[in-house]
């Protein structure tokens, strides 16, 4: 058989070190007695886009025997690639889309971690692609599929993806070079050698284990109330135990949220409200629907009842657990001093919301007062939570929780929650699905400031549409479409179109 080149395509995202990896492979091949040709298409792709690096290597001895140089290609051709290395899961998908992975020939070495694309990140809800489809396709497409979490290897080894790719390539055994030759290349490159070698080793071993994925995370056992709880809490938990078993977990989480948000009394109100929907669910035959209505209501009622007002934000920002979390997120060393600054922008509307209802309403009702007070709150505030003054300011604000029930915002939200619950029960009498969709509509209301105002406005339009069209057959599906349309863009154009279509 005549010799032919070994063809290697590396798919990486700009900034992941795909170029460094390609240079290492060239160096490796030349040391291993091969001729190497390498090319790429940088340019615009360098700026965070997807880039393909392409390498062909050919045994030097075979070329010498022929007395000439082989003709090597400058771009990968479907059916002609021996090794594809993808630095990220969707890039593995892209390689397959381009036909670079073929069952007769290609070893696909891919990282299982995700770097989300802008379309996935910027969706108003969850726009993430399903990685399991890539894994399934790769199992079907590749002659051999080696997959490891290169990001974890890079993190744990203290280096970057390029070293993990190189390690995975070595571990896969897809190239005719020994491990120490790979390591010599890293060592002689002379940059960040220790981290690169550690990452290389982790990725090598993971890949050499035939790319067996990490052991499945054990599912934590249900957190039964084994700890001592106060009598007041026990009473609430007892009410939850009277609910259908299937909804108990969500109701417990919901209860935990609202009690943490306010107090025991508020938790009791949560259960009162939920029980009204439980009755509607049972009347509508919810046991045949796995009580989806109760579960969704338990979830969304808790989210709504724990609306993010000034007191809540101040409370969450000052907790000890939060201090521990930001320290770990910014990777502070154990004794390192870390200062944290918050970017808050309470507008006059939020301030009035946090005042006792009559006062808040009075200010908002007076253009003169609004203008005068509004000037005070035109600019964003930077609050240094780790300083004494900043912390005390937020800590005292958090204590405002005690007067929350008197505030304008609380009154308004409570009224809207009651109206929404009434719609859920009325919907349950018409169509079980309709009631579920009504419960889910709450997800439109989220965020702060303008974002919250936009979501609330969309929600109000959906409620209006419901009031007018609820008895139309199949309105549940329509409500769902409206909800999706409201989350399609922030200009409201999709929702306008969907409402026009009714």
């Amino acid at each position, binding site marked *: 058989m005549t010799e032919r080149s070994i063809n290697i395509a590396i798919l990486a995202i700009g900034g992941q070190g795909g170029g460094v990896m390609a240079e290492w492979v060239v160096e490796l091949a030349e040391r291993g007695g091969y001729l190497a040709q390498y090319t790429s298409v940088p340019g615009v792709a360098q700026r965070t886009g997807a880039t393909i690096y392409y390498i062909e290597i050919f045994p030097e001895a075979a070329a010498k025997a022929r007395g000439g140089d082989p003709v090597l290609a400058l771009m990968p051709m479907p*059916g002609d690639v021996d090794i594809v290395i993808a630095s990220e899961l969707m890039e593995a998908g892209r390689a397959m889309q381009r036909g670079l992975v073929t069952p007769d020939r290609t070893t696909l070495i891919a990282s299982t971690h995700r770097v989300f694309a802008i379309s996935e990140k910027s969706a108003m809800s969850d726009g993430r692609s399903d990685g399991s489809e890539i894994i399934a396709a790769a199992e079907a497409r590749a002659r051999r599929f080696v997959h490891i979490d290169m990001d974890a290897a890079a993190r744990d080894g203290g280096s970057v993806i390029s070293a993990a790719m190189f390690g995975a390539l070595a571990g896969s055994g897809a190239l005719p070079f020994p491990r120490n030759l790979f390591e010599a290349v890293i060592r002689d490159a002379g940059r960040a050698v220790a981290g690169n070698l550690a990452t290389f080793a982790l990725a090598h071993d993971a890949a050499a284990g035939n790319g067996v994925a990490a052991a499945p995370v054990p599912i934590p056992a249900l957190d039964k109330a084994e700890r001592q709880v106060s009598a007041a809490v026990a009473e609430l938990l007892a009410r939850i135990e009277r609910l259908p078993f299937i909804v108990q977990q969500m109701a417990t989480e919901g209860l935990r949220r609202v009690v943490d948000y306010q107090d025991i009394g508020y938790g009791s109100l949560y259960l009162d409200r939920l029980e009204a929907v439980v009755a509607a669910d049972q009347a509508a035959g919810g046991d045949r629907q796995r009580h989806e209505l109760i579960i969704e209501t338990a979830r969304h009622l808790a989210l709504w009842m724990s609306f993010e007002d000034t007191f809540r934000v101040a409370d969450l920002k000052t907790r000890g657990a939060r201090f521990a979390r930001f320290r770990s997120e910014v990777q502070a060393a154990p004794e390192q001093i870390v200062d944290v600054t918050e970017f808050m922008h309470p507008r006059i509307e939020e301030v009035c919301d946090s005042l006792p209802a009559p006062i808040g309403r009075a200010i908002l009702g007076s253009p003169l007062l609004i203008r005068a007070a509004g000037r005070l709150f035109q600019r964003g505030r930077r609050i240094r939570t780790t300083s004494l003054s900043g912390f005390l300011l937020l800590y005292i604000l958090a204590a405002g929780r005690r007067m929350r029930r008197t505030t304008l915002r609380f009154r308004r939200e409570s009224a809207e929650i009651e109206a929404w619950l009434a719609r859920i029960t009325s919907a349950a009498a018409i169509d079980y699905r309709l009631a579920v969709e009504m419960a889910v509509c709450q997800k439109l209301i989220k965020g702060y400031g303008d974002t919250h105002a936009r979501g609330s406005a969309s929600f109000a339009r959906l409620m209006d549409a419901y009031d007018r069209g609820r008895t139309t057959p199949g309105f549940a599906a329509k409500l769902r479409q409206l909800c999706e349309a409201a989350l399609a863009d922030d200009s409201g154009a999709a929702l306008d179109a969907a409402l026009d279509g009714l």
Partner: protein
Amino acid sequence: MAERSFAREVEKLRAGAGEIFHGEGILAVTKALLQSGVSYVGGYQGAPISHLMDVLADAEDIMSELGIHFEASASEAGAAAMLAASVNYPLRGAVAWKSVVGTNVASDALSNVASGGVTGGALIIVGEDYGEGSSIMQERTHAFAMKSQIWLLDPRPNLTSIVNAVETSFELSEASNTPVMLQLRIRSCHVYGRFTARDNQRAAFGLGDAMQNPVRDTNRIVLPPANFLHEHEKVDRRWPAAIEFIKNRKLNEFLGGYTLDAGIIVQGGLYNTLIRALETLGLADSFGKTEIPIYVLNVTYPLIDDEIVGFCADKKAVLLIEEGQPEFIEHQMNSVLRGANIDARLIGKSLLPRAGEYTGQVVKDGVAAFLREYAPTMAPAADKPADPAASNIAALGDVVPARPAGFCTGCPERPIFTAMKLAEQDVGAYHVSCDIGCHLFSILPPFNIGNTTMGYGLGMAGASAFQANAAQRTVAVMGDGGFWHNGLTSGVGNAVFNGNDGVLVLVDNGYSAATGGQDILSSRGANSRRNTHHPMASAIRGIGVEWIRTVRSYDVGGMRRELVAAMTTTAKGPKVIIAESECMLNKRRREAPLERQAIAGGKRIVKERFGVDADTCTGDHSCIRLSGCPTLTIRDNPDPLRDDPVAHVLDDCVGCGHCGETAHAAVLCPSFYRAELIFNPGLWDHVKARIRGIIIEFLQRRSDARRACFAF
């Protein structure tokens, strides 16, 4: 300082005869220039030729040792005009740029130098930005070669062939008194390979010799009556001389077999693709050995009639692999064959795609179809049956997200477009005329800003028609690279002169950033070789603009206010907002090592980065829609009640501050925080932290205890 440093690699340029040179295509081209005894080199950056300019800049010491003058030209037109030095004197010179756009800019000077002709070898190296990875309109440089009569070389894409082509180009240029273009495809520019070096040459006749002994020949100047003379000279003298040279030196190659009555003609640059296609069809080995006759056009203009006739005379059909359109070569070859009464059928675009890159698969399919029709004995069996896993591929189309290019982490241009998006909320929608540069990424998600782009430095000129007395003004965007390239005159000067009333956002990041961070007149970094530190504000004031504002680009609120002011002011004439902040790529490259050193050396250093509190983030992602920062991403929501992922800041955040500014300006949400990590704290830091810690932790324990009462 350019994005990539070739300081280490350029040492290879000193390699002497017989040494094996390993390196990238652009490095090989530079070496070939030195081996050819050039006296001057110039050019303008732009992919895929940017790295050539960077190599040349880094090789300036080596070049000056050889008496070579290097210039980072102000534009391609300026670079082309440099070739004037070869008109009267036996001086060899080379210029380089991105094509077809650079050739468009250069074409005035190119026409002039091609008309008068040259004495010394004049070489134009064009990086043909065509096909995958290209960022420009898909056109062919071939048309320029034809219309101005400049010879066009398209060598086989291996370093030996490329280096030989450079050296031969100078000889061809001198033999025919005509400038020569060397076309390098994107991948050839970046291809890593090897070739055997020769000694560098110092020109026997140098620039100094020319300056001290000026020569004037009115027949070489494009002015009547010489201009009419030039046209005759081109066809009567220079053309035949070139044909003679190309034939004698065998620049085109006849490879493959001799007996088959079907053959293939291919542009040199596509030769390797063709051989790989034949190899996978089982018709060639790895060394290019094949039964099929192949005529390789290493010179694609002019065509050599005798060679075409000779190749086609004994064949029934010939496949012509010519990338791009219009198919100039096919037209001309058909006319040659018709004139010579040759019956061979020339198959080109009737079988291969009329437009688009000729990838391996395209060539393979084309060759297979050609052979099935005209050489059935050689033809491969019909295509393999459909791949059982093929259905996966179609399904993946919905799963694999597009990954458009975007602004880098910490880019100072991102906040400009956040501000433009926010300003739209204040003054209503407005037309945006874009330019060429990193800032053009604004047209992509998540910003989706921009209506047209008309070329480098032409952002403001692209808005110049909109001068009706309307309720809304237009906004133009221009970078500092485009500004110095031509925007100062074509955009700003034009607007002043014509009394135009638009708004210009001038991006001042200190570099020609999109092309790889080359220095420009207004750069502020230290540069021992170039004269910089000339602010754009002085230039536009000098040219007559009165309404000028300078804003730090990360100040989203400030930028928004100035934009609104510019859109609503009663002042007449152009309104220019200069958005200044250094390109983050360059800044980090300069500062990161110094910072690491300082920390290791025990100096007190504060490092900033941002984070998102998952507790307060509600998963709406407004912040991402106003940013698109690579380090601002999403992750699973830790909240058991919520499904939508929360925003999350990755560890490579550089702390530019955009997230916080945006959260403020857009009144987004309180989830962003800025963390300041103090390295090597001083005594006061410790004392302060201690006192704060005691009080804060006491209060936190107090609240935790309260919550614990009703926790479950």
